[in-house]
């Protein structure tokens, strides 16, 4: 199997649903092995459609996609053996025990009889469910169910795990619990993970690289830090003590303006805003420049652009802003029409 170190290779993928709605429009990207890659986008951006293409559930209407070097259309069954898919909905049978859910999964993925038992124990331990393995799933908490779902996705040791909105609808505590286990996967199993989310903090804390997707096309793709830096670094916001003489202030500003790291200083609402490329790293230089001047600072604030700012920049929308767009309404309507037809 030749994947050239790339677990995912998506080349100019398009999906047009019947009725002409473009869910994906010429998306291309690659994900190297052992990377945690985040797909970010508002509802209806095309995240789930993209995952459905990569998990062979939906054939693209244009372009090519490979998972672990295998074509998702021509080599469906082998692609499926290579992936674990944890969908948005909890895809576990709550009338069975956790153990039976895992046995079923091991069977459906054609695992050798001899390795099933140790592997089941291994994944149960990994998601911290060993003690509850024999209880019926309908006695589990929401977080436990999600962890079992993830364990099911892992049991056949796939090359890549797809996590579609792994923490959607979970409370904050449970979200952190799921993050903990995803991080554990990264460290202990060293696997490639592609996750979609519309929580910024989730993407920021878990993903090595992020792709921002909106209205079916890719807007940006890079590490969270680089994405933030591309927005133009950060701000050092400071105020002088009221007692400071204006001559000393002018002296200080003059000295700062000479420094190379300073791009611009503006005064706004009595606060000086110093624009630089990386406010955290440049903070010591800022203090050095003021050293020796008899000047007291009242306060200093650092502001780094957040992923929210990045998202806003690329999509023109706040991610947490769940307002429904015209297009989304059309989409919902068309899917309702499809439903009616089949009845």
């Amino acid at each position, binding site marked *: 199997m030749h994947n050239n170190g790339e677990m995912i290779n998506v080349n100019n993928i398009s999906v047009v649903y019947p009725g002409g709605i473009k869910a994906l429009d010429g998306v291309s990207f690659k994900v190297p092995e052992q990377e945690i890659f985040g797909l970010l986008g508002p509802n209806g951006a095309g995240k789930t459609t993209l995952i459905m293409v990569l998990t062979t*559930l939906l054939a693209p209407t244009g372009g090519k996609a490979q998972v672990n070097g295998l074509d998702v259309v021509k080599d469906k*069954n082998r692609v*499926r053996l290579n992936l674990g898919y944890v*969908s948005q909905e909890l895809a576990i049978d709550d009338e*069975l025990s956790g153990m039976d859910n895992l046995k079923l999964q091991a069977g459906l993925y054609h695992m050798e009889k001899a390795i099933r038992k140790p592997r089941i124990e291994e994944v149960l331990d990994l998601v911290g469910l060993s003690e509850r393995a024999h209880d019926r799933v309908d006695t589990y908490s929401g977080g436990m169910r999600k962890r079992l779902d993830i364990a099911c996705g892992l049991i056949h040791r796939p090359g890549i795990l797809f996590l579609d909105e792994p923490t959607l609808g979970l409370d904050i505590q449970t979200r952190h619990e799921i993050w903990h286990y995803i991080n554990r996967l990264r460290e202990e199993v060293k696997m490639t993970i592609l996750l979609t989310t519309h929580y910024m903090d989730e993407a920021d804390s878990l993903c090595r690289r992020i792709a921002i997707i909106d209205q079916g096309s890719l807007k940006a793709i890079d590490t969270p830090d680089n994405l933030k830096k591309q927005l133009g670094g950060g701000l050092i916001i400071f105020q002088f003590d009221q007692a400071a003489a204006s001559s000393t202030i002018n002296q200080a500003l003059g000295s700062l303006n000479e420094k190379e790291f300073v791009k611009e200083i503006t005064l706004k609402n009595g606060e000086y805003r110093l624009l630089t490329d990386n406010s955290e790293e440049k903070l010591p230089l800022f203090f050095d420049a003021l050293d020796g001047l008899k000047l007291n600072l009242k306060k200093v604030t650092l502001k780094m652009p957040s992923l929210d700012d990045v998202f806003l920049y690329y999509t023109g929308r706040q991610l947490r802003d769940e307002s429904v767009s015209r297009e989304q309404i059309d989409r919902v309507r068309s899917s309702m029409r499809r439903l009616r037809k089949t009845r």
Partner: protein
Amino acid sequence: MTTLVMGLKGAYYIFWREIKRFMGQKMRILMSLVQPVIWLVLMGSMMARLTDNPVTAEMIGIDNYLAFMVPGVMMMSSLYTGVFGGISIIWDRRMGFLIKLLSAPIPRYSIALGKIAALVLQTIFQASVIVLLAFMMGITFVTGLPGIMLTLVICGLFAAIMSCISLFLSASIRTPETLFSVINFLTLPLVFSSSALFPTAAMPDWIQVIARFNPISYAVAPVRSLVISGWDWSTLFTGMWLLLLMFLVFFSLVYYRFEKGSLL
């Protein structure tokens, strides 16, 4: 691994899951046992006096209505187990479990095959209970144990046909309510225009024509002969052959629907 082996293995694990679920649903098992009791004891006793009348007795062909009715009840129980079986696809879709099955490395028809196999096994279990119950009420098969075995096979085959129909419908129907109404629309006339509960001789001419082509009649006739009259090879042969043919036709439809159409 060839695709056929993958398909059969997949079907086995789907079957395994359905049986595990069935075993966990104590109430469902209990009801599947109670239902035939109600049919036989209540309906059977209600109608028992029918055969006191020599004319009806002649139409029924035996002076014991219960013996006439046992094959009918077996077939009705097989019918309902099979025909409501497709609902599990609807629930799997709602639970999100269907996505998991569809993204697993098994061909799609194995999902249908596994569910059909599980329904057949449940049907055979229920039919065995009815045989036992009938025995306790004094009804024995004139063809003995081999006749009972063949009866169970016929029940299983009939349930397989009905579950194919149900799965075919459920592949496109999204709510249990819709499935129920479609199925009731289909099955109620089918049951009452068949020879399952009433002798066709007692029906008006036009219903007799329907009854003649009613698949339930073809399943009931061989079983009735196994209970009442003995090894009637021509009835057995015609019935089995037609049931097998129907199964192949309906399974092909399901196969095509599952492999080619969208299930989500």
